[in-house]
């Protein structure tokens, strides 16, 4: 005996009636209109916006900012000659190829400057002495090369050279006496290990920064340790930047950060610091910190031809917040619409309707699964 059959349509009628009672035809119309608009207007618009953002990200990549932080025995800077760079240089021996008015020269026998062309001047420790490099509009477009290196006696030495065409590197300001001493085109500064009076700080805005140096068999100076980071500008963090990637530097690496030749050109900034007190059993090192916008950082490692440290090509997409938001919105909308469609479909094929449909096709009670397979056609 089969159970008395109920019409599924009749069974659903109270529910439909309840729904119809609750939602007016106008609301239903609006809901369907909303679904239509989302599917055929909003979704295509979002896809167009997404494509636009992808194209924009490809052709106008985000700004990458690089930072270097390292401990190294050698560093080199190329300073723009038109910009003034000031450093305090008390306690140094200043070596110049030109006679400097207003400074007392050391005897050749006492000179640590090396070759005979260099004239030595001992800079007193008790006075404030400021080396002001560059700053002359006449030197616009030219550069001053600075190379710094720690000494074997745990001191520091620097060579400062003006590009051909520069007649003077700048001035040495004797602040206490209010005197400016004009400098020549070539200068060496030597802080012997035992005579270093204070920690030394050399802030800079440079065209090129090089930390570390090529490892050769003829010299022992090298970069000891450090790290590099890539940032991108963002308004979401208080620091206005988000870290994209980070890498460690190995001993012996040489890393270069160059001026960004965009519009406007942007120069790397940073500082070199030489601490008076350093661990006795480690070589004296400079702390080098540089930060700037660039296309890449160049890493040169002993024994290989070097590589560029730069973000993965996908980073231009993954670091674009707007692109990510639109992608997420499209994904969410598709999920919502897809989910709604599936639910509506499942609802339309409710168990009662499926059963009725089956009976309408096959009649009687359902066949067992095995028999069903054989007679499915």
């Amino acid at each position, binding site marked *: 005996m089969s159970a008395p059959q109920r019409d599924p349509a009749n069974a659903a009628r109270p529910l439909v009636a309840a729904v119809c009672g609750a939602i007016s035809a106008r609301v239903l119309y609006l809901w369907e209109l909303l679904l239509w608009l989302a599917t055929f207007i909003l979704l295509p618009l979002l896809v167009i916006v997404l494509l636009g953002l992808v194209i924009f990200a490809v052709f106008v990549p985000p700004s990458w900012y690089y930072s270097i932080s390292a401990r190294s025995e050698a560093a080199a800077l190329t300073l723009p000659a038109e910009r003034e760079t000031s450093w305090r240089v008390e306690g140094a021996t200043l070596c110049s190829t030109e006679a400097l008015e207003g400074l007392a020269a050391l005897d050749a026998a006492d000179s640590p400057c090396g*070759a005979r062309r260099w004239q030595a001047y001992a800079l007193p420790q008790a006075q404030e002495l400021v080396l002001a490099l560059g700053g002359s509009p006449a030197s616009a477009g030219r550069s001053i090369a600075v190379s710094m290196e720690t000494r074997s006696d745990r001191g520091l030495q620097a*060579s400062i*050279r003006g590009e051909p065409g520069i007649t003077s590197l700048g001035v040495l300001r004797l602040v206490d006496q209010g005197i400016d001493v004009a400098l020549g085109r070539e200068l060496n500064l030597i802080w012997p290990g035992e005579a270093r009076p204070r920690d030394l700080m050399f802030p800079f805005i440079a065209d090129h920064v090089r930390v570390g140096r090529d490892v050769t068999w003829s010299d022992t100076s090298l970069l000891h340790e450090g790290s590099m980071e890539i940032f991108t500008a963002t308004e979401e963090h208080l620091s206005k930047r988000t870290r994209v990637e980070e890498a460690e530097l190995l001993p012996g690496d040489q890393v270069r950060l160059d001026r960004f030749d965009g519009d406007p050109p942007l120069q790397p900034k940073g500082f070199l610091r030489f601490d008076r007190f350093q661990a006795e059993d480690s070589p004296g090192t400079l702390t080098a910190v540089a930060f700037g916008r660039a296309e890449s950082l160049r890493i*040169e490692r002993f024994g290989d031809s070097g590589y560029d440290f730069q973000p993965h090509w996908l980073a231009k997409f993954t670091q674009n917040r707007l692109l990510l938001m639109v992608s997420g919105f499209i994904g969410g909308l598709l999920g919502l619409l897809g989910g709604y469609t599936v639910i509506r479909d499942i609802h339309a094929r409710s168990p009662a309707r499926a059963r009725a449909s089956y009976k309408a096709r096959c009649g009687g009670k359902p066949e067992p699964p095995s028999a069903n397979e054989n007679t499915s056609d």
Partner: protein
Amino acid sequence: MPHPALVLLALLLPLAAQAAPPYVAKLVGPFHETESVDVNVSGSVIVGVSSLNATGGKAVQRLQLLHAPTPPSRLVCLTMQSRDGVYYSRNTFELPAESAGSVVAVPYDRSSRLDKLAKYGHEDLAIRASAGPCERSANEYYVLDASAARPPDRVRVFVNSFGATDVFYAGGPRVKPVACKSISEGRRTSFDYWCDIPWPRGGGDQLGVEILRERFGREMPAVALTLFLAAGK
């Protein structure tokens, strides 16, 4: 009136004679070149000696050696080194016996990396030809040129300064040491300075030059080299 074609031929003949020197150097032994990201650091201060015409990778296929009138040896060691240290070659060539004082073509057609070499710029490839076989080190150099049409104006010497802060050359027509130019950008594995030495006019067969280096004012050992000057140049 002579035929225009004959006139043209008469004008081109001297140029053709200049373009193809009659003497060609012969490679001794197998050709040796390497290109590797695992670079070598050379131990030599003098890395390249060539005229300004013969700098850069495009010049390697038309190298001409300005042979000495009284050469110490018929063998020359031709080395090429890229600034980044990736490319290196060292090969011994034999100069024809009767070529003393003449221009000798140095064929570099055995290289399998000519395409890559052509991409090296004027500051990126150092070429030198030292007297004698490659097994023997020498400080006597032939000047390489890429055109025999006229004497070179300057000889460019590429220098590996080994950390010097100042490099000068002394010799030639100038008495006082002249500052060499530092290469501040890019990789400086093989060389980091160049010195442009004016070609002496009406001088002898040889030119003695000294490369002087200083490191933060302290003098480093000077390097003396002799440049052979081709006769008639």
